[in-house]
Every structure is written in structure tokens, then in C-alpha cells.
């Protein structure tokens, strides 16, 4: 296996002087070709900054990102990003098919090839018949499928996904997770998903990188020992999944006392009340 993505010594700061905020602190990791890896970290820990540095959308303060050995300086041509907010990422003035064709327009493909490629991508995400519709005529989950199809149509060496399923309902999220795994295996593509959802990171990926609170740094690099063929019900019940989820949760939150609460949603509540307590203490003190 060759290395697809190499991030080394990555730092990013916003602002200077007193207002300086370190979003990403000295991150180093690699992702192998054909791997489906996820980066999980608490909300606001600098995950988005990290993703944007990898995508070449922002220039890191220091450190380097390399894609298949080439140093990333500006957006690489064989990379695609799926953003969380599909309704803002899709172009409402273009039909679904035109949206998917969009990134192919300035390439070497002829018009017919472009159409075929877009149709193929729509077929892969299970949206064969809706090419002529406008995105707003589709449900949220279908819209996110369209943005996945648009990214796939580009045949990227690396597919980055920024909280891709955070804006859809739970049922749709399960479908999209399975879809992502299926598409990734069919293509042997390299996928890096950024998420705050512990369950999702474990279920979805072959490897989980756990980030600390802001500034983001890697606290663990775990290999997911689940079978390649996964099922939303049985996999989530399996001992391996439960223990893995617990491990990630413990790493994220650090406190043994709260590990009994296995559910990610409960984790977030615990986190919120913890910060509220800290704030209350600082006010009285």
C-alpha cells in the first residue's frame, strides 16, 4: 500500500498577538491509498481547519500536506470535497445532472462523455432518474447523495468529507454511511471523513484518528477491527463495536466517570453541562 496523504507538522493559527487562536497544533499523520479513515474530535476542535488545509483551501501557518507525494500548494486537481451543508454546496440554478457535471466542464471530456460520467455517478448513489430535477425538489438525504455523486464524478484520488451526514435525519444517515462504504470499496478510493460523531467514525471507517480539544492534536490512531461487510443493526450490537466506541469516547473526554454513558448524544450533553459548570465556577470565583 502506498501513502496517499501525508500531513506533517501541520500548524494553523488565526489572528495574531492577544487574539491569536491556535486551531491546529503540530499534526502529523498519513493515510494509505484505498483506506477509509475518519478523524473524530469534539465540536470546534479545529477539524474544519484541518480539512481545509488538506484541501488546499487555506494555507497552513506551518507544516506540509502532500497528496500522493506531491506537496499541496493550492487546491490539488484530483481531490474532491463533500461539505456538510448540501443545500449551500449544490448550485440551485443547475439541475441535478448539471450539478454533477459541473466539475467536469473544464476537463478534457467531450459533452457526451461528461453526460455519461455524471449519469454513472448518479447511478452509483442510487439517483438514476432525477437528473432533470432541481436540487431543491429532492429531500435532504438525496441532495447529499447528489453532492457525493458530484465528488465521485471527478474521480478524485482523495475524497474529503466534512461532517457529511450531520444535516440529515438518523435513518438517512445510516443509508448514506452504507452508501459511502459501498462506493469506497467499489472504487478502492481513499476517503477521509471528518466528524464529531463517535459512532459514525467507528462504523464508517477502517481507521479512526482521535483529535483532542482545541488546538487539535492527535491523541490516538486506532484501527477498526470490524469486518468489511457491516450492518447497521448487528455491527452496532457487536462487542467489538461497543468496546471501540467506548475507547474512542474515553479518549475524547478523558474522564472514566462518564464512560458509562455510551451514546454519543449523551456525551455531547455531558460535555455541554461540564463547560457550563466550569463557566459557573469561574463566575462565582
Amino acid at each position, binding site marked *: 500500500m502506498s501513502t496517499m496523504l501525508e500531513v506533517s507538522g501541520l500548524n494553523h493559527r488565526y489572528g495574531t498577538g492577544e487574539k491569536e487562536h491556535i486551531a491546529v497544533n503540530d499534526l502529523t499523520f498519513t493515510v494509505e491509498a484505498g483506506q477509509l479513515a475518519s478523524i473524530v474530535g469534539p465540536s470546534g476542535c479545529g477539524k474544519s481547519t484541518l480539512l*481545509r488545509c488538506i*484541501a488546499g*483551501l487555506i494555507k497552513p501557518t506551518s507544516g506540509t500536506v502532500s497528496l500522493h507525494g506531491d506537496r499541496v500548494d493550492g*487546491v490539488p*486537481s484530483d*481531490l*474532491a*470535497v463533500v*461539505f456538510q*451543508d448540501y443545500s*449551500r*454546496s449544490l*448550485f*440551485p*440554478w*443547475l439541475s441535478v445532472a448539471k450539478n454533477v457535471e*459541473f*466539475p467536469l*466542464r*473544464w476537463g478534457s471530456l467531450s459533452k457526451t462523455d461528461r453526460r455519461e460520467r455524471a449519469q454513472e455517478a448518479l447511478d452509483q448513489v442510487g439517483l438514476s432518474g432525477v437528473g432533470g430535477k*432541481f436540487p*431543491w425538489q429532492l429531500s435532504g438525504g438525496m441532495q447529499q447523495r447528489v453532492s457525493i455523486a458530484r465528488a465521485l464524478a*471527478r474521480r478524485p484520488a482523495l475524497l474529503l468529507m466534512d461532517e457529511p451526514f450531520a444535516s440529515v435525519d438518523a435513518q438517512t444517515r445510516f443509508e448514506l454511511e452504507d452508501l459511502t462504504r459501498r462506493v469506497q470499496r467499489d472504487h478502492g478510493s481513499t476517503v477521509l471523513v471528518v466528524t464529531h460523531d463517535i459512532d459514525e467514525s467507528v462504523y464508517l471507517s477502517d481507521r479512526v484518528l482521535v483529535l483532542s480539544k482545541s488546538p487539535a492534536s492527535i491523541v490516538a490512531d486506532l484501527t477498526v477491527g470490524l469486518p468489511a461487510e457491516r450492518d447497521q443493526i448487528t455491527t452496532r450490537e457487536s462487542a467489538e463495536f461497543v468496546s471501540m466506541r467506548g475507547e474512542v469516547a474515553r479518549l475524547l473526554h478523558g474522564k472514566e466517570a462518564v464512560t458509562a454513558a455510551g451514546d454519543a448524544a449523551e456525551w455531547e450533553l455531558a460535555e455541554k453541562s461540564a463547560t457550563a459548570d466550569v463557566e459557573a465556577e469561574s463566575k462565582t470565583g
Partner: protein
Amino acid sequence: MSAITLSGRVGRGVSSILRTWLLFIAILVLWEIVTRAAANTFFPPPSKIATTAAGLWFTGPAGHLFLTDTVFDNVFPSLGRTLGGWLIASVIGIAVGVLVGRSRTAMDYVGALFAFFRALPPPALIPIFIVLFGIGPGMQTGSIIFGAVWPVLLNTVDGVRSVDSVKVETARSFRTPKGYWLAMVVLPAAAPKIFAGLRLSLSISLLLMVVSELVGPPNGIGISLLQAQQAFDFPLMWSWLVLLGLLGYGFNAVFVAVERRALAWQPTGGRN
């Protein structure tokens, strides 16, 4: 489709036409009755205005589609200046608006200047255009362009600036070349605002056409209107006024139809 829903549809169609025109027709009839009863020279009845208007415009030779020389000498030049001035203003407004709007700092430099020029009532600039071009088509078209350019320009600036940040990132992540970025992302995103500006500019163009022609020959609807008034030919004066109303209505109707088509992708515009 069953007969009931069909007749229901026809009924709805008829009732919507009635709703649109009922009050208009009622006022026309009322106006006819009142003006006939009053027999005031300054306010001829609508039927008289209509016959005068028909005689004025539609009694020409068959080879000219029955249009009279007045139409060719006065109406078409006015229409040409209005639409020509508006089109030139639109092209300038959109082009400069995109450049200024997409530049990070340009608006800081020119914003105050634009606001100043926009605040000037366009008809007040006619004397200046008379000095620049003399009285004639140049002055008239110039005034229309200058008056009509600001709504398009400022709305375009506003529109191209408000491109959603996620769309900006999406386009960047696909390495969208500049031409595609402008034509397929920036302009469509700004289109609703640009159309609002274009619509306002169109009515300003019509207004400035009349006002600029009032002050100066050689021809046009404005000067014909003024000459009719000065000759105490009131049915003729009213005919020109009616024509202006019809033009305004027609321009707007065509514009709305084009806008609907162009913005059919909008969720609210596309459903009806």
C-alpha cells in the same frame, strides 16, 4: 381530467382575468360617463382619446403595417433611445458591478462616488448633458444611460458580493476556472438582485426618455406630448399619455416574463 375540474379551471381562469381587469374597466366606464357629462375641453372622454390615438398611429399605408409616419418619426426613435440606453446601461452596470463587487477593495474606493451619483435625481442631470452633447439624441440617450446605470450597477455589486461562502469553497475545491466561476456561479447567484436592478432601470429609462425629450427636439414621444399640449389639442395630448402608459405596462410585462424564465430555478418562482 373530469368535466368538473375542467370547468373549475376555466372558471378560475375567467375569474382571475375579471379580478385583474374589473376595476380597470369600471374606472374607464366611469371616466367616460363623467367626462361626457362634464364636457370639459381639458378632459376629453376616453372614447375620443381612443379614436384620436387610432387615427394618429394606425391609419398609415398597408406597406407600413398601417402604421403612420408619426409612429416612425416619433414613437420608434423614442423606443430606440429607451431600449438602447437601457441595454447599454445594463451591460455597463453588470460588467462594472461584477468587477467592483468581486474585488476586495474596489468598493472602498468608489462606494462613496457611486452613492453620490446615484443620489442625484437623474432629470437634474439633463442640463449638464445638454451642455455636453447639445440638444438631440446624444443628450437623450446619454441621460438615459446615466440615470439607468446605477440601480443595475449597485444591485450587481450587492448580488455578486453575497455569493454563499460554501459555494465559494465548493467552486474552489473543484479548481473552477475564472470564466466558469463567473458565468456559472457568480452571475446566477446574483441574478435575482441583478434582475431587480434591471427592472428599476427600465422604468427609469422610460421616464428619462420622456423628460429628456420634453426639453428638446428633434422628435420623440415627449416632444410630441408637449407640442400637443401647446397646440391645445387635448385628445392628442392624452393619446400620447396613454401610449406611455401602454409602453410602461408592456415593457414590464415582457420583462417579468423573461425574468420568470431566467429565474425558473428559484423554488418560489418555479412552482407557479
